């Protein structure tokens, strides 16, 4: 009996020795997608280092991630429909399912129990048990009479285990209530031509879907859904010819700072500013290229912008008090994503073609560290676990 206990102890010790990260919290951890090699780097934002790498996540072009609310697991959504639950502490894949043919991202429910993927093929959303990754609900994005299915974009979690998203092909916003996953309830709101992505405001109230096929943004006030989706920032181009759009902008993440929302203009070298009280366009800020990500530092004092090809070597910083560009940086070739540390003293930027993640101090704009990474794209920190819309 005694030797069994000893043996068991040895086995346990063996297991914990396999935990490369040891006993620690996860509040300063995150992942960097290394998209060409189908793997993620687990990073530490305090030590500014790569702690471990996890392989075998499939096609990670256009991959994104959400976190379990204990900040231990990352759920990574791959292009090939793979949904992988990565254990940050054990630095290994906990579970993995192939849930669709072509996927574009996902979200996690308010209570942390459901992970929801948004899919291009077959078009729709699917909900999974966050613990087991078992399918909990399948909600096709069917539209029209012929039963066609639309590509889904812009999926965002709303309070009450509801999810808002947009249908690229159908020009609609939908809200699906998954409070009882066995009986999903979906409401539909006509939105405009070709919504390409969406975001929810930090309070979980307004869902915005950017439109590609026309100037403007569709906005649904989820506190007053009976009013339907209305068009804001309409005609911001005023009939001017658009530039070719070599990359779709992203609306993921908060671009809301104070009372203002900062949004990319499609086909224009501009960031649009709207007042969140009445959603009127208050300013157009000229920038270096066509914005892809427009992201507010957590305190809202700065907004950082990166750009589509061929201007993807630049990053600009807007001071939200003056509404002017105060910094123009060249972090490296092919800047794909930016992520702020939990309280925003630093920002991590992926420079895909330099195989590097570059870290800047957001006060001095000094480059404080550079980490090697293989074609890095998305960077996601565990602070997202506690935020609506991430």
């Amino acid at each position: 009996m005694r030797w069994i206990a000893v043996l068991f102890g040895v086995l346990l010790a063996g297991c914990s020795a396999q935990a490369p990260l040891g006993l620690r919290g996860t509040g300063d951890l995150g992942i960097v997608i290394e998209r060409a090699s189908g793997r993620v780097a687990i990073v530490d934002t305090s030590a500014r280092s790569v702690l471990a790498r996890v392989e075998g996540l499939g096609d990670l072009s256009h991959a994104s991630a959400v976190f379990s609310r204990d900040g231990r697991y990352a759920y990574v959504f791959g292009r090939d429909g793979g949904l992988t639950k990565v254990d940050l502490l054990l630095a290994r894949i906990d579970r993995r399912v192939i849930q669709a043919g072509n996927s574009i991202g996902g979200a996690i429910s308010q209570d942390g129990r459901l992970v929801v993927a948004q899919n291009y093929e077959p078009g729709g959303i699917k909900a999974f048990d966050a613990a087991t990754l078992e399918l909990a609900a399948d909600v096709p994005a069917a539209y029209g009479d012929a039963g066609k299915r639309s590509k889904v974009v812009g999926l965002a979690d709303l309070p009450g285990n509801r999810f808002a998203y947009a249908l690229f092909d159908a020009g609609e916003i939908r809200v699906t209530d998954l409070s009882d996953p066995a009986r999903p309830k979906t409401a539909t709101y006509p939105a405009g031509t070709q919504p390409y992505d969406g975001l929810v405001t930090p309070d979980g109230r307004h869902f915005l879907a950017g439109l590609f096929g026309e100037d403007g943004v569709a906005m649904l006030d989820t506190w007053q859904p009976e009013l339907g989706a209305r068009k804001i920032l309409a005609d911001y181009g005023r009939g001017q010819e658009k530039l070719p759009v070599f990359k779709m902008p992203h609306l993921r993440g908060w671009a809301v700072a104070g009372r203002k929302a900062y949004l990319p203009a499609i086909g224009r070298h501009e960031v649009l500013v709207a007042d969140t009280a009445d959603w009127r366009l208050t300013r157009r800020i000229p920038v270096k290229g066509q914005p892809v990500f427009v992201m507010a530092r957590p305190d809202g004092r700065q907004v950082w912008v990166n750009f589509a090809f061929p201007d993807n070597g630049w990053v600009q910083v807007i001071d939200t008090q003056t509404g002017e560009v105060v910094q123009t940086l060249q972090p490296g070739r092919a800047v794909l994503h930016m992520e702020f540390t939990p309280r925003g003293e630093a920002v991590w930027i992926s420079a895909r073609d330099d195989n590097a993640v570059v870290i800047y101090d957001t006060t001095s704009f000094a480059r404080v560290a550079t980490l090697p990474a293989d074609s890095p794209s998305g960077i996601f920190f565990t602070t997202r676990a506690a935020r609506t819309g991430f």
Partner: protein
Amino acid sequence: MKSVLFLSLALAAGGVLASGDRERELVRLVRQDCGSCHGMLLTGGLGQPLTPEALRDKPAENLVATVLYGRPGTAMPPWKSILTERDAQWIVERLLSGFPKEGG
């Protein structure tokens, strides 16, 4: 051997050749930047798949025109400010015969 095969394929396909460096640039551009809409494996995304199977019955010259001039009313942008006609022809021929991997 591989490069000989490659060369003869390219010649057979219409004699369009790009120099080695430009080829590498184009492979990267297609995988990474076309890939942002068509997927890095070109199996589709917002834009449809660009695999040989998916493109089989489509005339090459139409595809070259799509690459250079885009498709108005859709998200497919015109690349003529970035790519020459030769570049576009080379890309389409490679798409039709199976697009090379980066570094491969």
